């Protein structure tokens, strides 16, 4: 098999591969920076919590409107935002820490979702429906993902400064501006939005993977914020492409393949990463002159 056959031909021959690639690319653009910030804020598990919070919302949307892109997105968005904003407000307005209030809110959302789904008594396997398929991205889904990515990047550009300041020195930001709280909540809203977009392509749980794994991986290579964002986006995109090709050539399910490729990249980075990887710590390195 030539390199062309292996890497390019699948995308040339099949539109669904091109669509999947564009979908993953759009997701990566939004997920890259968000993942980096989640990691730097020590909120890596928040993405996972949010994905659980979205699940019942999307499920409720499905129960009321069937397999409708907008109903499911809206349901997920509302559930996710309620949890994100609720947890954020409680954390900022009371003495309870963010992680505890987040856990409280998403567990309530999850339980409520399961309850509502059970009451409706549908036999349709909701989990199956909620595992999106990146191979079946239609125009509406593609537009939704692209729109979400655009909103994400523009909004991030707007809240970039307060967001960074809120991470580095929240007390200082609080002393010069009130933007800290709102920018944090807007940031969480963006995370929700991207998970909602991701769930049509990958399912919510795997969408978190595309967000967090590249961020954690890039930490082993660079130490600068902008570089982290760029590298993480790049790794997310490459994982998407490699995962699709793996699924194409090896016949593995596409969603898990994409996330597993990102996982392999993470594993390699843990071992070989020059910035704090296992080997770089074990091997004696020449040091500079004082």
């Amino acid at each position, binding site marked *: 098999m030539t390199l062309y056959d292996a890497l390019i031909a*699948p995308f040339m*021959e*099949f*539109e*669904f*591969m091109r*669509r*999947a690639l564009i979908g993953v690319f759009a997701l990566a653009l939004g997920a890259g920076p968000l993942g980096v910030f989640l990691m730097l804020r020590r909120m890596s598990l928040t993405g996972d919590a949010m994905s659980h919070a979205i699940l019942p919302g999307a499920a409720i949307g499905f129960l009321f409107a069937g*397999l409708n892109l907008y109903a499911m997105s809206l349901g997920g968005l509302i559930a996710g935002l309620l949890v994100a904003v609720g947890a954020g407000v409680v954390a900022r307005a009371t003495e309870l820490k963010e992680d505890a209030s987040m856990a409280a809110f998403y567990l309530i959302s999850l339980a409520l979702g399961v309850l509502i789904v*059970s009451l409706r008594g549908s*036999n*349709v*396997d909701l*989990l*199956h*429906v909620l*595992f999106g*398929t990146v*191979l*079946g*991205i*239609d125009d509406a889904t593609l537009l939704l993902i692209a729109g979400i990515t655009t909103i994400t990047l523009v909004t991030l550009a707007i809240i970039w400064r307060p967001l960074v300041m809120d991470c580095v020195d929240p007390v200082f930001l609080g002393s010069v501006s009130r933007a800290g709280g709102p920018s944090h909540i807007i940031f969480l809203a963006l995370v929700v939005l991207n998970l909602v977009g991701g769930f049509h392509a990958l399912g919510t749980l795997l969408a978190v993977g595309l967000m967090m794994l590249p961020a954690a991986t890039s930490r082993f290579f660079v130490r600068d914020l902008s570089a982290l964002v760029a590298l993480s986006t790049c790794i997310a995109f490459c994982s998407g492409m490699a995962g*699709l*090709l793996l*699924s*194409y*050539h*090896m*016949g*593995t*399910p*596409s*969603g*898990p*393949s994409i996330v597993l490729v990102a996982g392999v990249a993470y594993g390699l980075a843990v071992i070989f990463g020059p910035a704090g990887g296992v080997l770089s710590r074990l091997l004696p390195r020449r040091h500079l002159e004082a």
Partner: protein
Amino acid sequence: MFSRRFMLAATLAAFVAPGLARPAFADDGKMPVVATFSILGDFVKQVGGDRVDVTTIVGPDADSHVYQPTPADAKKLTTAKIIFVNGLGFEGWADRLAKASGTKAEIVVATKGITPRKADDDEHEHDHDAKGHEHDHDHGKKGHKHDDHDDHKHAGHDHGDQDPHAWQSVGNAKIYVSNIRDALIAADPAGKDSYTANAAAYTAKLDALDAEVKQAISKIPQERRRIITSHDAFGYFADAYGVAFISPDGVSTESEASAKDVARIIRQIKAEKIPAIFIENVSDPRLMERIAKETGAKVGGALYSDALSDDKGPASTYIEMIRFNANALSNALSQ
């Protein structure tokens, strides 16, 4: 997700239910019988008429393969005089449910006397290697996600080599009818005349339906009688009426699709110039729509395979269902 709990609850109900069991005949004098799914239920209704009270376990638009019995189902069984099952491994949960409920009802296999098709007939030669593939997917995926469905599905129709969807041929439907008639007469000899008359009348309707379908299909050019559908349920229909149903493996209701599978299907549709692609009433349509767009094949809407629609739907009885499917096929395949 919940089935383990339901199974436990069902077992519990099994201890309680025998004490609650009502007399074999309900108050209104009708004989209570149970059919496992909606199509079979329709047959029993047609033959039994006013003399029987038919309850179905898996209702309209629901998927029998992955059905999870509830305690209420166990209770239905305990009061029934006869339990009609499809057999051929279609509803693997039924035997266990019947045992668990402690019912004294006779279990009647409605497909008795039908020559079963092999699930992998030579008409599906394209799919041979892929079939093994699908099983792999199922195991790997369900290991973590569909733990509880495992039992049902594998005790169900995936496992055996026989294709259980025998009702898809109208000729077989007549055998169902005669089996049901015999079983009803055996249980309720007083109604013999009524059952015999009902069965005869219904069989006549089925003959007319059979002719109607054959005529509709015959209008389709031979080389266009090929469709892709997401679920391998139309083997008997294919044998009876000469339409090839090609199922894209790896895109079934249970396993997540790989890019390789989708690519192969698209190539296949293009290479064999398959004119139409059908989506079932119980599976995820997004992927099929994508494949249709990419190949230029027509999307033929839904075909009803394992379940009837509800009363308001286009396929609330067996005859309507077959007629609906035949119309859908001829609309999509004729130029």
